[in-house]
């Protein structure tokens, strides 16, 4: 056993830097701010949950991140997950698609369909979602740099299949500022990238008002080295940057804020994570209410997907990741997440197998069916420890946000690479602490075993599938109306050059079967390419 656990005198500090006491009482809750920000579930400031009934009415949406090979392969996996009780889809695209490249681009060689589904034209989307009822199963697109094109494709596909855009639900990740900090599927420079996020929010507010065009991600900032308080604070700074972009165009906050959503990470201390989410909910509501003067309750809701915590999973003893995943799911349920997606146990090695996906799905179903997680709202509420930590973490999040503003704002700090450097320094320190054993990781620096080949089914890369994808792209290029494509691409170019919202022109272009790469090239021709600050580490 870890000798440090044997003494009661040890100093305990959580990852966010808050010292943890041996015992909490009502006095600690009072000293940290009492119940001023507590309230009731479904009422401002929503600390206890954004809905009054929460899971009593409906369990969280289950939405495993899925996609590989081509659209037909992915369509089959989607149907498998739906048949097994999954209630939403979370689409993984391959790297060429995420970077705005066609499957026949030289830079796409060896990457087509490898880490997600390859999409070149609307034809692929038609195949990917064939037979899936988009009114019953909501779809989340994990797409960022290329989001204008892929959102346009999703809306065009749904419309052609007869779904009413006025009631169509779904989500795009579309959080480009966090891509510059971590994850890296940026395309355009920082300012035009924010403008394009604004275009999607504005377009959806007008044409697809139930669609969530942005899911602001603390998740990847945490993966890049941020602590839990910073994860939330940076995400809120980024969400505010998008809100400011849209408000500057003349939209009122209540026209779009209800469709903003968030994506957060879970690994580390259970109590710290639960307090983090409760603190974040109250703070976001306060920001929207006090700073943006939102009137609709929905504009103040921190709606979130949470459950995955890739950074917590290990390459060593991968079967332990099944257990970690179950704890992360428990945390997510205790925290009142709207949607849950778990990282699969084999993800440190490969694209998850069908078997691993099913385990993740069953993990969530166990919580719903056997463990009583849907029986009552905010079950951790009222714990002296949780309430104190919630108050402390909310105050710390506000301090981090004030510090970002004092340093020039999140957009400036991302463009200069300062946020990237800050979180990267923390990641380096964490690795040093793991290497020294100061930060414990089971299977990595304690309780190690001699491991032979892990019981993991590797996802094969299929060159023939990649070639078939290129062949389908070529077939579309030969059969589409070339004049219509040229005209549509010119319209995209004109919209981008004039500073207009590019979405209407991009929607027309995808309907004419212009490809992801073709549209992206037009936009980079106007906006240029992002230059990564690499000398800050």
């Amino acid at each position, binding site marked *: 056993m870890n000798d440090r656990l044997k003494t009661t005198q040890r100093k305990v500090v959580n990852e966010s830097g808050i010292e943890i006491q041996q015992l909490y009482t009502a006095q600690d809750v009072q000293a940290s701010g009492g119940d001023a920000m507590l309230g009731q579930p479904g009422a401002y400031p929503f600390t206890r949950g954004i809905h009054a009934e929460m899971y009593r009415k409906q369990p969280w949406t289950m939405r495993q991140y899925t996609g590989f090979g081509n659209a037909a392969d992915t369509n089959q996996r989607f149907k498998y997950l739906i048949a097994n009780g999954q209630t939403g889809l979370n689409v993984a695209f391959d*790297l*060429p698609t*995420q*970077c705005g*490249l066609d499957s026949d681009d030289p*830079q*796409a*060689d*060896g*990457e087509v369909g*490898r*880490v997600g589904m390859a999409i070149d034209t609307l034809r692929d989307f038609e195949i990917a979602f064939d037979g899936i009822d988009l009114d019953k199963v909501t779809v989340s697109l994990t797409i960022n740099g290329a989001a204008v094109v892929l959102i346009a494709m999703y809306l065009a596909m749904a419309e052609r299949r007869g779904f009413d855009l006025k009631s169509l639900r779904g989500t795009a990740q579309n959080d480009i500022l966090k*891509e510059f900090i*971590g*994850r*890296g*599927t940026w395309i355009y420079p920082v300012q035009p990238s924010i403008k394009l996020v604004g275009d999607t929010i504005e377009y959806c507010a007008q044409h697809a008002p139930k669609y969530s065009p942005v899911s602001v991600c603390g998740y990847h900032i945490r*993966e*890049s*080295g941020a602590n839990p308080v910073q994860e939330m604070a940076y995400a809120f700074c980024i969400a505010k940057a998008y809100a400011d972009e849209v408000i500057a165009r003349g939209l009122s906050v209540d026209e779009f804020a209800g469709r903003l959503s968030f994506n957060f990470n879970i690994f580390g201390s259970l109590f710290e994570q639960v307090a983090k989410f409760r603190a974040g909910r109250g703070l976001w509501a306060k920001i929207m209410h006090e700073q943006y003067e939102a009137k609709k309750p929905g504009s103040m809701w921190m709606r979130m997907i949470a459950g995955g915590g890739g950074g917590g999973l*290990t*390459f*060593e003893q991968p079967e332990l990741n099944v257990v970690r995943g179950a704890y992360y799911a428990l945390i997510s349920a205790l925290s009142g997440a709207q949607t849950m997606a778990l990282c699969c146990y084999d993800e*440190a*090695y*490969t694209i998850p197998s069908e078997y691993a996906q099913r385990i993740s799905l069953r993990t969530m179903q166990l919580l719903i069916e056997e463990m009583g997680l849907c029986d009552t709202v905010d079950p951790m509420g009222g714990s002296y420890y949780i309430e104190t930590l919630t108050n402390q973490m909310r105050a710390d999040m506000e301090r981090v946000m004030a510090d970002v503003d004092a340093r020039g704002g999140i957009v400036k700090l991302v463009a200069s690479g300062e946020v*990237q450097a800050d979180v*990267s*320094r923390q*990641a*380096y320190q964490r*690795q*040093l602490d793991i*290497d020294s054993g100061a930060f414990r990781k089971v299977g*990595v620096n304690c309780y190690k075993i001699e491991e032979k*080949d892990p019981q993991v089914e*590797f996802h094969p*890369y299929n060159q023939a599938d990649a070639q078939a994808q290129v062949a389908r792209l070529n077939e579309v290029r030969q059969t589409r109306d070339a004049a219509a494509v040229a005209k549509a691409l010119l319209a995209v170019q004109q919209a981008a050059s004039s500073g207009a919202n590019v979405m209407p022109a991009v929607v027309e272009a995808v309907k004419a079967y212009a490809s992801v790469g073709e549209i992206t090239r037009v936009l980079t021709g106007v906006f240029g390419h992002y230059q*990564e600050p*690499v*000398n800050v*580490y």
Partner: protein
Amino acid sequence: MTELSRPIKVLLAKPGLDGHDQGAKVVVQALKAAGFDVTYTGLRQTPEAITQAALKTGADVIALSSMAGSHLAFCAKLKPLLEQAGLGKKVWMIGGNIPRQDHDALRAMGFSGVFQTGSKLEDITAFVERSVP
């Protein structure tokens, strides 16, 4: 100990389209802390760009960080370019999500250092130290 009268020069590159750069940036800091002269390329490097950067920086060590599974295909493209550029005798190394069954193939290709996820930073810096003549 190295016989160089200057710090060892390391080029650390992110090959292909993979955006997982947390590990690469951590290794950059560890290599700098060990006293090496490190150039980090950033993301989306082609085999041609890595070869050019290695020539330009006069790198003693060419290191790749790969997390998205395309390491074998990428290294097969990079190897002849490095050799044609006269960089065949430099130290080549790779780290990241590299399954054990691929280690021998990478070593046979000339990547003498293979560091999978979970490697200690001091093992990486020690390898650089002892591999450069």
